[in-house]
């Protein structure tokens, strides 16, 4: 009853506004939203907005799309380290929202199309960590400490954690998200954005900034910096478990068609070309964790620059751009945890966009 009454009032207000502003109510513009950046964060955010805010027209804009985004290089395993200054509860929600969303896909017919699979394995530590349970331990499945018998296989490690998480392969997931986005009426535009003013000139009312490393120049955020990661794809179909060395220096992530092994964490390193020394080093470290890798054929090498920041930036701002008031929602700086936090941060970005809309003048609220 209440909902119907609210609906009725909205319609009346809409027509009154139209009358007052001398516009044809049926032609009044829908809110134009642009999501900048078509990596996993931008794509997820675009889908959330397009599917939920049906009164908005949503455009996904980027200079690079799958398979050329940073997300495409990522192994896509859901694990992460906490940001130092963001309340843990908030980060927990991001993780939980993402894994719950992906678990549903994993157990559906869409799993293989979307590139989502369950992955069990072990996280190893050379010494017993102070915090034996990472902040997301209750959101993955079956989290527990490794038994002594399990640790026997890893003579260089004294402590370990076993659990089941999700692997989300962006070379499948991004095209799958794009399909969903288009189905919800979204528009995809390949365009490099040099500054936010451009977007205001193009008539966008809300800009959702998911530009990752690009935010460094797009919004002049000096806190953004690359952390270079090199990975190898190897053929080792007998490997069914992930193995990760505590700090994430070395990892082995079996995927649908190959096993991703890595890695490197080179801060402020902008090199996109593979480094043969890094490849050698990665193979050596990972083979020590999993000797059978010495027999694995290397299929390829890739490099990605993690869009890092001390803390992810997920907040609103109201900017005056080219004489217009434009709402900007920032959602970037996920570092190596883009896939892991993609859906959760997208949902929060959606709620920030919603807030922007509620605070707009009535004419464009509908």
């Amino acid at each position, binding site marked *: 009853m209440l909902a119907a009454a609210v609906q009725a009032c909205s319609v009346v207000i809409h027509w009154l506004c139209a009358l007052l502003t001398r516009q044809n109510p049926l032609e009044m513009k829908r809110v134009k939203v642009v999501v900048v950046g078509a990596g996993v964060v931008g794509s997820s955010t675009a889908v959330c907005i397009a599917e939920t805010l049906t009164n908005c027209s949503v455009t996904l804009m980027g200079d690079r799309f799958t398979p050329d985004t940073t997300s495409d290089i990522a192994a896509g395993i859901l694990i992460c380290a906490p940001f130092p200054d963001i309340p843990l509860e908030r980060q927990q929600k991001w993780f939980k929202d993402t894994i719950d969303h992906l*678990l549903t896909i*994993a*157990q*559906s*017919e*869409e*799993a*293989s*199309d979307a*590139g*989502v*699979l*369950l*992955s*069990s394995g072990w996280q190893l530590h050379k010494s017993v960590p102070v915090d034996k349970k990472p902040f997301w331990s209750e959101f993955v*499945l*079956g989290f*527990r400490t*490794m*038994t002594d*018998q*399990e640790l026997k*296989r890893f003579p260089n490690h004294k402590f370990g954690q*076993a659990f*089941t998480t999700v692997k989300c392969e962006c070379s499948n997931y991004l095209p799958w998200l794009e399909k969903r986005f288009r189905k919800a009426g979204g528009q995809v535009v390949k365009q490099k954005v040099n500054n936010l003013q451009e977007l205001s000139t193009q008539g966008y009312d809300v800009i959702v900034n998911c530009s990752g490393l690009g935010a460094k120049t797009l919004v002049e955020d000096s806190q953004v910096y690359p952390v270079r990661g090199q990975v190898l794809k190897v053929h080792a*179909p*007998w*490997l*069914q*478990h992930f193995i990760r060395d505590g700090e994430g220096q070395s990892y082995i992530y*079996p995927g*649908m*068609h190959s096993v991703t092994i890595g890695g490197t964490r080179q801060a402020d390193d902008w090199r996109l070309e593979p480094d043969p020394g890094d490849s050698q080093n990665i193979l050596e470290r990972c083979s020590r964790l999993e*000797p*059978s890798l*010495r*027999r694995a054929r290397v299929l390829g090498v890739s490099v990605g620059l993690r869009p890092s920041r001390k803390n992810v930036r997920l907040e609103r701002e109201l900017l005056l751009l080219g004489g217009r008031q434009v709402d900007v929602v920032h959602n970037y700086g996920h570092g190596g945890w883009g896939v892991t936090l993609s859906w959760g941060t997208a949902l929060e970005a959606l709620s920030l966009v919603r807030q922007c809309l509620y605070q707009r003048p009535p004419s464009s609220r509908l």
Partner: protein
Amino acid sequence: MRVAVIGAGVSGLSTAQSIFEQYHSLIIPLTIEVYADRFTPLTTSDGAAGFWQPYLYDKGNVQETKWCKETFDYLLSFLRSPDSIKMGIFLQSGYNLCSESAPDPSFKDSVLGFRTLTERELELFPGYSYGWFNTALMVEGKTYLPWLMDWLRERGVKFYQRKIESFKELVDSGVDIIINCTGVRSGDLQFDPELTPGRGQILKVQAPWLKHWIITHSFTAGTYNAPYIIPGSQSVVVGGCFQIGNWSEQNNSEDHQRIWEAACKLEPSLKHAQIVEDWTGLRPVRSKVRLVRESMQSGQSKFEVIHNYGHGGFGLTIHRGCAQEAARLFGEILELKDWVPKSSL
């Protein structure tokens, strides 16, 4: 001394291996011959998924549980060696699912990281309210058997492709000890009322996103008559068929349909999996494994037979434990016959 092993499935080959390992330096010369009408990749062991797991409960056959654990530990010891891939051995974790709570299985102390499933994990499998998670081993027959044959060949073991019609045939040719690993067709050599085929049909599919085995258990339908999904290194085996007394080695389209539907219900992502082919095998089912030695007579000749057959759906799971026991029985024979000084065994 001439030893003839009849049967070239996992039991025959691994028994030949154990005997060679333990006696080749004690008995000189020790000639081991393997006779079979079917060799890899056409044996029952080849078609099986290669998943190490005994039946949930051993029904008092504690010896079998011990042999299964011995096999697990033996295979596990190869994991850090470069040979593990050549042997077809690797770890895989997964889910055992039941529709009601059940006592812990016989193998809980043999596998790695055994635990009960959490509520959230059970949510992944609607229709199942209880179960366990653990890490177990895979030992793929199509890789393991060729590895065993190479191992044996390198050590002078000879292979003969022909069907042995009777023990007598081998004894007459001068064989001293016969190792009977004839699996489901042991009845052709010696009537055994307890041996019966447990027909299994499986579908091999391409579903490389699956990294866990999922075995469901129905206490009404019986072992392996409920759906199971076992990913391997090349493909995923989908099954759920255990027909006692059915000797047909032909693939059956009704079984195919039933198995496929049940598996897709269990794992919806299979909908987009490509089915490669079906395969049917006859599990050599018996109330318990026949692993004994028997003194027999043919005309004037007395000879010794060691029986090692009737491993049902757990041949790969139990093979090493049984092979070592068969080798121990071999030693008993040697002692009895004074073929070797007692002190050297």
